[in-house]
């Protein structure tokens, strides 16, 4: 390690070494039977250097001088400007690591999978077609020449089940930073939804009030809305959200906060070493600020927001953390006289530049006077900004789905094609 740091000190104006050590264990279910147990142990390194004001970047499963040389070679052709790297500080964030996850063994996985299967079967004669329980521990180390020397362990657990009966299917899942997964809920709810969706009927094409579940809300907004409030996309003119202070959506408040206790996307420093913080993106529908990684914060001249995150390629880019949606009008009873949608098919095909979407509904129900009827093949479509101007009421079933924290939301006047 010292030899590598000496090499980087000599050959780069600034440098960063990021190391991710991941351990995961999972169990898979096929047609109600346990089929497979997997485990993996991976180490990946990313080296970022600044040479004469431009960035070089390279990754490998081994840390070596060769890896550093590759990063330096790239800095010579890159036009990615950067003056410095974050000094790096750790915030106190509760609930991102659960030591119990490290102790998860095959017996725990077998028992958890049995609970998933049994909870589904207790509901009725469904096929727990495919599912899994997965736990992982990620150990992050980040050091750079600007003073950062950070370490953190993060845990993440997930249970997923798809139940099938005849030509009906439904999926449900639970995600947590701790090993406390609600397996009974996942099993029961996926089975209930599959049963409820049997004997679906066509409905008339037209305008309806719709209620999107937290899963559907996340699928739609993470594809059609979130990329539009990344500072980089605004600067590169790939976003319609060009004017701070302008009202773009109805009176919803949308906050990105990487420091929420037990948040699925919470951490004590982002993948570049910046502290997580609360960023109000929309306040009462008015655009207040953007979220950004460190590089674009410097380039655009705004404060870093702690949104520099690394995906599989380990390259830090802007990404939302925990995005919390809030609205003044909240009610227990928001489903009557509306189409209630559990999930969407094809949300990744939404257009993030225009905000246009047209998506097939999965497990949709027409609710009238308390009576729920399963809906066969319906597409909802429109523009995400138009949709968010027609929010009527929020439910109380707040739940975090990946990086979205929201309840079911009722929208007025949505076009449904059948």
């Amino acid at each position, binding site marked *: 390690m010292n030899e590598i740091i000496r090499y980087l000190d000599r050959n780069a104006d600034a440098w960063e070494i990021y190391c991710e050590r991941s351990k995961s264990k999972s169990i898979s279910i096929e047609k109600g039977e346990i089929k*497979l147990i997997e485990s993996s*142990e*991976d180490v990946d390194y990313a080296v970022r250097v600044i040479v004469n004001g431009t960035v070089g970047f390279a990754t490998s499963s081994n840390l070596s001088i060769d890896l550093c040389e590759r990063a330096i070679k790239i800095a010579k052709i890159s036009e990615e400007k950067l003056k410095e790297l974050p000094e790096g500080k750790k915030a106190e964030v509760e609930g991102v690591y659960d030591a119990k996850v490290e102790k998860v063994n095959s017996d725990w996985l077998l028992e958890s999978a049995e609970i998933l299967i049994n909870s589904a079967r207790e509901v009725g004669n469904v096929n727990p077609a*495919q599912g899994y329980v997965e736990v992982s521990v990620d150990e992050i180390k980040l050091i750079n020449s600007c003073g950062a020397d950070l370490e953190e362990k993060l845990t993440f657990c997930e249970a997923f089940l798809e139940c099938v009966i005849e*030509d009906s299917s439904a999926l449900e899942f639970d995600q947590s930073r701790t090993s406390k997964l609600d397996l009974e809920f996942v099993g029961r709810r996926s089975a209930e939804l599959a049963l409820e969706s049997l004997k679906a009927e066509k409905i008339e094409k037209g305008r309806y009030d719709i209620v999107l579940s937290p899963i559907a809300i996340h699928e739609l907004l993470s594809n059609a809305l979130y990329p539009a409030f990344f500072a980089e996309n605004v600067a590169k003119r790939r976003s319609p959200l060009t004017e701070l202070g302008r009202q773009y959506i109805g009176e919803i408040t949308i906050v990105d906060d990487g420091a929420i206790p037990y948040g699925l996307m919470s951490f004590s420093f982002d993948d570049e070493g910046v502290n997580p913080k609360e960023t109000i993106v929309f306040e009462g529908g008015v655009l207040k600020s953007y979220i950004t990684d460190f590089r674009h914060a410097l380039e655009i001249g705004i404060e870093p927001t702690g949104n520099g995150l690394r995906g599989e390629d380990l390259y830090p880019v802007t990404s939302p953390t925990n995005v919390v949606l809030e609205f003044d009008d909240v009610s227990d009873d928001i489903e009557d006289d509306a189409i209630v949608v559990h999930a969407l*098919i094809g949300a990744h095909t939404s257009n993030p530049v225009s905000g246009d979407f047209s998506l097939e509904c999965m497990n949709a129900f027409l609710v009238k006077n308390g009576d729920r009827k399963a809906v066969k093949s319906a597409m909802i479509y429109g523009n995400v900004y138009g949709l968010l101007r027609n929010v009527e009421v929020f439910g109380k079933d707040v739940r975090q789905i990946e990086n979205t924290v929201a309840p079911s939301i009722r929208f007025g006047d949505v076009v449904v094609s059948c």
Partner: protein
Amino acid sequence: MFYDVRYVKTRSLTISLENGRVDKVKCDESNGKAFRVLKNGFWGFYSTSAEISDDEGIRKAEENAKGKGRSRISEVEVRSGRFVLKPKIDPADVSIEEKVRLMRDVEKALRDDFIVSTRVVYIENVRIFEYMDSLGVEVFYEVPRTGMIVQAVAKGETLQFYSKRILKPAGYEIFGDNVFEIAEEVRNVLGGLIKARSPPSGKMNVVVDPSLGGVFIHEAFGHAVEADHVMQGSSVVADKIGKKVANESVNVYDDPTLREFGFYPFDDEGVKAEKKVIIENGVLKSFLHSRETSAMLNGKPGNARAQDLDFPIVRMSNTFIGEGDMSFEELLEEAKNGVYLVGSRGGETNPATGYFQFNAQFGYIVRNGELAEMIRDVSLSGNTLEILKDIKLGRGLKFNPGFCGKSGQLVPVADGSPPAFIKALVGGA
């Protein structure tokens, strides 16, 4: 006890040129090993990017094979093989400066008054794969993949986005006039898109171009015939082998031996790649199989693929629908009044219900059998068991490359189709 060992080594370089500036250059060299053990009908799996001996890896996988199950695995016909795809021009022999120069030239061809943002992405990678199992199978291959993605955003009354790509299992020789042609197409399409009207909605007659037709067949049928869905009891075509699922003009194939983006010489279970007939003259002939599903359902293996070191699952490769004999004009005439839709940003399907969604990048209104006004991007949906009854096929099969996601794993695929006529639900504003 059955076991197998995969050793996967990858090298990749990605360069982005964003609004004319070299950005997000990523250079990766990784390797690792993955081990599977099948014991008492139950699978144990272990993978790592750290140094490990085969014995130690197999031992760790065996530790995970803790349950009892019914899984079996089929033998393979070709037990050994070696394939090295030597590109005409190895990307490693082309300087990074030369690659950037080509990207800058392509970016220039994108520019226009109405273009507000551009992105050109260059991609190269090499996958070096070694496989051995306890039944004596041993294979090795090395396959490069190279390509370019060209995207732009245009501003008129609305902000619009369009993207095209060229991706092949080949080297730097794939670049010629083609990259400039797609840049020009991106610019021209966007010039129209910013003035285009909203698409119509409802069930209607649709003519799809080959790239949309390819995504259509991938979503409409490809996923439903992946035999792992059949094993799970979650495919609407599970009981349809030997039965009519489409009209007689329909033939659908999956062929990993074609030099399209989904090419592979051996799958991730060491099985030599071969062409599979999925639908012949409208009749469902076979599913796509792994060694496990082929043993359980009496099929032929060869479609088990994995991203990096993940557990191999049943996947498509180059999936296509065979040509028909109608001209493009005849297809429009058949549609009479409806839409002609082009290009795709992908789609998604639920094989258990048969409902699928796929997205078109733009299109035109068809009025009295002729192309009329341009329309914006829109999605379509349909059902696997209904959609191929009314399909009519044109001439001119073309492939389009892409990445297909399943169970969190992305693999390179290509989808092919001639222009075709279908009846589908269009969701436009």
